[in-house]
């Protein structure tokens, strides 16, 4: 992402300019984070046009609600990604979406995203494949379901037919692994 932007603004400067409703800062925010947000939303809703609609809603929400961002609670990216994820998850929990997805079971969805996704990756994100190969299949599966699928712990336990305690342990193991490889 950095390659496309020659100027880099430190996060605290960006945040204080966004508090002042600086449109240039907002444009910078978009240029740097839109693709990552869009990727996450896409993995949840699995439709390009829907993802872009939700991306738009997310950025408008970020602009309008910036006053409620509390930097002591975490990084800017964590806050905006949660806005995007929550909007995407709320969408998948709406009736229309549920009907549309009724026949897809979890394990199929995971495979389905992967098979469909591969063609849409940024060509410059070559690191992804090697990174994912370093994660064990069950670690990847759990991250896909929890982080990109918007599933709750209990749902994951139910769908994968594994105990709740195992879900927790697996999330922790996956994140420890992820931390060492990305």
């Amino acid at each position, binding site marked *: 992402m950095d390659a496309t932007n020659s100027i880099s603004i430190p996060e605290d400067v960006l945040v204080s300019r966004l508090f002042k409703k600086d449109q240039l800062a907002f444009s910078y925010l978009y240029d740097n984070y839109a693709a990552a947000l869009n990727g996450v939303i896409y993995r949840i809703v699995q439709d390009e046009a829907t993802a872009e609609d939700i991306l*738009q809603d997310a950025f408008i929400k970020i602009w309008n609600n910036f006053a409620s961002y509390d930097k002591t609670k975490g990084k800017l990216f964590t806050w905006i990604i949660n806005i995007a994820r929550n909007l995407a998850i*709320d969408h998948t929990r709406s009736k229309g979406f549920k009907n549309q997805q009724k026949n897809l079971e979890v394990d199929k969805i995971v495979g389905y995203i992967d098979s469909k996704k591969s063609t849409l990756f940024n060509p410059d994100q070559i690191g992804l494949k090697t990174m994912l190969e370093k994660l064990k299949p069950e670690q990847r599966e759990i991250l896909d379901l929890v982080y990109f699928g918007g599933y709750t712990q209990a749902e994951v336990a139910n769908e994968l037919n594994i105990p709740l305690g195992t879900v927790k342990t697996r999330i922790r193991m996956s994140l420890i692994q992820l931390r060492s490889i990305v």
Partner: protein
Amino acid sequence: MNTKEYIESGVLDLYVSGLLSIEEMRDVELKACQHAEVKQELVLLQGALERFAFKYAIVPKPEVKERILMAIQSKSDVSRIVSIKSATTENQPEQDVSITPSLPAARTSLSRLLLAATVLLIAVLGGAAFYFNSQLKNSKMLTAQLEEQQSGILRQVDNLQLTLNQQTEKVQLLTDANTVRISMKGTDKSPASLALIYWNKETKAVYLDIKALPPTGIDSQYQLWFIDPTAGPVSAGVFDVKTGEMIRMTNAPDAAAFAVTLEPKGGSSQPTMDKMYVIGTVAS
């Protein structure tokens, strides 16, 4: 619970994955404020997921940015018009006052009265504009907060629904004629231990009900095994000790016995026989 145990409990991982309820999130945030190590761990986890998300980046169509900028532009135009209006009304009285002395004809009592009334009116209008503007800001913030609360509540309702389904399933399991109860008794290593298995021979579902098991260390976890008559011991998953709650384990297609061993955290592929805590055979 000390800081290290708190970090290793996995609650921070759930926090960054967005899996906690609003109250649980507040608790994590409080802990992060109090302990630098917790805060540090959170930053590391958030950074890892951030980089993970960037790896999945998909560049949206250029129109999306245009649409967003247009949407926020039209909103700030409205607020700019409001602020221009209030700025002109606030300037008005000063101008009027400074003009008045150069116009001797205006020094009649009637015009003074009119002037005073105008100044008063303008002041009232300005005040009202300011009041409504701040009210508007407040209600916008309130709406945002309520929206966040609502989606949190919806998620909780979903969780409750799921819990209810699981409870219903348990009742069905317990009353099902195909369900057998296997009592796993403590081995010599731990004679006081006891755990029950409810195994439905039809659906193959396995539920574990822990009556008594000694607490584990941080680095280890209990693992349930079922002994397949032909394949030998097969893992039915790891679990944390929680009494008074039935835990759904991995289905067992065929089992001659069930046993629990203590294994390194995350479980093993083969049971460690000298760390077996309870065992029970299935009556044929």
